[in-house]
């Protein structure tokens, strides 16, 4: 896999586009701030959400069993999948049983994680993503670049061209209103023809055995209520103990995600519709392993609001695709090393450790601390790239030897002043590639301090 830094370099080559991406996300972050500040008890809500999720992790087995029992009592079929492969098999077997040829799907990061679309398409099922952003990237054959706004990396002209090719909209038309209307007409036909609908799950209530799904477009409900079979796919960590906890999470989710006070639709599914069938697939796929890592289990509290992405100075200027995983940004960077430490060893370094992600996270995940801890694990396990490893080794030597440190400092200050530019700005100097090196002071702090002391 290409390193995050390499892919970001490709992304930022187009400067005006980088600025545009940066500003689009910062705009969402600003809306989040306004929404958060309008609630006096905001910080208290974050603390409560965090405590509820701590309790969930500590009693996850009980809550899941309680959830299953209640869901079954409600007439829901509950399935358990240890990994992505089993999840996909289960979904496919449900579709097969009902002879479903056409499937509509609303947003589900879990099914992205499991690569369900590819699996089903190979087996002859037509899969249509119905969230507008997801439909755009599906037609473009790209992965999502953000968990809440999957097509945030595309400009309206690009969507216009794509729709012209795929949905036969007018050539050159790029008005979002016009394009959205075209998608609406196209998707209506898909909804009406679907034999089954799949949704993700925002919250699963142990006490009542129901699942809650939040959307703005209404696409989850159009799918679920029109198709005879509804399937809800959830990771084990989506459980919350009681319905009253929905009060906390629905107040936090949309405000954190887009700055809205609540999503337009907050749907609570408890029993199948008349003549319908309802399935829930509960998926592990590495989550129980993450639960066993004391330093990193907090990442399972995530409610997928995307706020950490919108605020991240790296994400905003490198784009979601640079992370190479379904869930990008700060949360992606602490989830991925637990999935494949070697493959994703670059991601915990894609951060300034500024801590902004932890500050906005509605469930108070210590994201930046986990990034730092993953770095230590990566070094310990020997997954640092050679250049960085050598650099670190030498830095370690110099920093632990005062004599070397002093002479090297002197040498550097002299070099920065005296050497011609080509000696300083070349392929060996990563730091000089995109920025000017600092003006060196005449003396080091240590020398200055010594002089002051002798002056007295």
């Amino acid at each position, binding site marked *: 896999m290409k390193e995050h830094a390499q892919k970001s370099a490709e992304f930022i080559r187009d400067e005006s586009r980088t600025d545009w991406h940066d500003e689009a996300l910062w705009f969402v972050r600003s809306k989040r701030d306004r929404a958060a500040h309008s*609630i006096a008890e905001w910080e208290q809500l974050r603390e409560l959400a965090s405590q509820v999720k701590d309790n969930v992790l*500590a009693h996850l087995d009980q809550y899941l*069993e309680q959830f299953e029992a209640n869901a079954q009592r409600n007439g829901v079929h509950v399935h358990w999948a240890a990994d992505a492969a089993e999840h996909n098999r289960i979904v496919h077997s449900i579709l097969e049983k009902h002879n479903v040829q056409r499937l509509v799907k609303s947003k589900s990061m879990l099914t992205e994680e499991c690569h369900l679309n590819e699996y089903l398409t190979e087996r002859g099922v037509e899969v249509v993503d*119905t969230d507008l952003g997801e439909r755009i990237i599906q037609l473009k054959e790209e992965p999502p670049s953000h968990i809440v706004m999957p097509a945030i990396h*595309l400009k309206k002209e690009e969507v216009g061209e794509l729709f012209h090719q795929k949905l036969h909209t007018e050539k050159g038309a790029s008005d979002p209103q016009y394009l*959205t209307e075209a998608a609406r007409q196209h998707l209506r036909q898909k909804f009406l023809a679907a034999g089954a609908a799949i949704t993700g799950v925002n919250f699963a209530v142990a006490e009542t055995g129901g699942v809650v799904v939040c959307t703005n477009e209404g696409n989850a409900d159009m799918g679920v209520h029109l198709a005879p079979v509804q399937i809800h796919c959830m990771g084990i960590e989506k459980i919350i103990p009681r319905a009253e906890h929905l009060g906390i999470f629905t107040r936090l989710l949309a405000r954190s995600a887009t700055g809205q006070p609540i999503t337009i639709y907050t749907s*609570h599914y408890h029993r199948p519709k008349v003549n319908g069938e309802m399935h829930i697939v509960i998926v592990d796929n590495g989550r129980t392993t993450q639960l066993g890592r004391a330093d990193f289990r907090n990442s399972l509290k995530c409610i997928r609001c995307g706020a950490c992405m919108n605020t991240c100075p790296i994400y905003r200027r490198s784009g979601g695709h640079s992370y190479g995983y379904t869930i990008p940004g700060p949360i992606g960077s602490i989830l991925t090393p637990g999935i494949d430490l070697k493959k994703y060893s670059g991601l915990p370094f894609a951060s300034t450790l500024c801590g902004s992600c932890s500050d906005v996270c509605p469930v108070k995940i210590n994201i930046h601390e986990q990034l730092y801890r993953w770095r230590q694990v990566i070094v310990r396990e020997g997954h640092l790239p050679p250049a960085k490893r050598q650099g670190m080794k030498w830095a370690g030597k110099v920093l632990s030897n005062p004599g070397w440190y002093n002479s090297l400092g002197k040498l550097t200050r002299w070099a920065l002043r005296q050497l011609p530019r080509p000696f300083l700005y070349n392929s060996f100097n990563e730091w000089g590639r995109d920025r000017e090196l600092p003006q060196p002071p005449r003396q080091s702090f240590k020398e200055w301090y010594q002089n002051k002391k002798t002056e007295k």
Partner: protein
Amino acid sequence: MSKNEILAAIRRNKPTGAVLPSIPTFPEGKASPVVTFITMVETGGGQVIRASGPGALQAAIENRFPDAKRIASPIPGVKSNVALGAIHSPSELEPVDVAVISGRLGVAENGAIWVTEEDCIHRVLPFITQHLFLLLDEAAIVHNMHQAYEQIQVDASGFGLFIAGPSKTADIEQSLVIGAQGARSLTVVLEPPLTSG
């Protein structure tokens, strides 16, 4: 079986402790919940009409959508020309222009309205219709989501939901577009509480 494996892995790996916090009562603010509610519905892209007296709802519908051909409503007093009881497949509701449904409870802080399956007759109705009217008793507006969840029993219906506006999206360059996959507009008709006496 995967279920047992997953549960066993959780038992091996889960942390201990962590009691469930109790949710405090948050201050309600001074503004009247009805006023806040109206502002929030409008912010979310909906319209609010205050109806007074019988026939006001019907008048509001005709006023807003004089050309609507198919109006579907289980509410007595609304001239519905779609026989909801005779619909066998929910897809038959595709041509509905206007649906008029009763809401159970409103939430001031976000303009959301709780609607249940029983109020919709068909679960898809509030989504598949081009335009949606929700009828709400002013006295049924609470301040926040905590109060809302205290009052409703989420599993009393097989399906229930909060609706906080017309269907919308900002998936193309963050431009807000009203009318994504669900209803293109939301009109909330507030009924004043019955005055005793």
